[in-house]
């Protein structure tokens, strides 16, 4: 049973790797944004399987990874949205003319 878990984890790592490099190569930013989501679920699944009988606290790491994958994903999206309009409004952010 243990080696089944380990083998399943290795297979998921490889599948995730294939998807990850596809996503990283773009061509558009939204494609690249999917990386966080893909690796969030694939990496967490691999971790849970690899440590099904292993280190205590591994589930905590999975939980932190899940939370932070959500956080990074949103940071990606915000960065993608902001970069379209980059170039303007850096110097004068928030300087109301009425001041």
């Amino acid at each position: 049973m243990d080696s089944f878990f380990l083998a399943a984890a290795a297979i998921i790592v490889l599948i995730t790797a294939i998807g990850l490099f596809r996503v990283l190569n773009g061509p558009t930013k939204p494609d690249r944004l999917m990386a966080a989501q893909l690796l969030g679920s694939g990496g967490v699944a691999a971790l849970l399987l690899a440590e099904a009988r292993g280190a205590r606290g591994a589930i905590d790491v999975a939980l932190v990874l899940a939370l932070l994958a959500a956080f990074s994903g949103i940071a990606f999206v915000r960065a993608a949205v902001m970069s379209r309009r980059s170039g303007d409004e850096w110097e004068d952010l928030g300087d109301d003319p009425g001041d």
Partner: protein
Amino acid sequence: MTLAIDLFSVLCISGGIFFFLAGAVALLRFPDTLTRLHALTKADNLGLGLVVLGLLPQAANLLAALKLCLVWVVLQLAGTTLSQLISRVAKDKARQG
């Protein structure tokens, strides 16, 4: 009894691997961003869901089982929101040309 539980785990996890594989194939084959996003979210949530389901009977105690479910819920929530946000970015991008 243990055999039945192990069999359940093996079946669920194999199913999970199948959905991860389907998601990866879709990422490689589908023509545009929105269809790829669609495939990714479906495959990932089902894949991770089945893996978690398969691991539940193997959990050491109730707290560990709860945390396993929580991991899935967090990723499910995040995945839903993120795909919505990403598709909006993709749509805006397409509109701008």
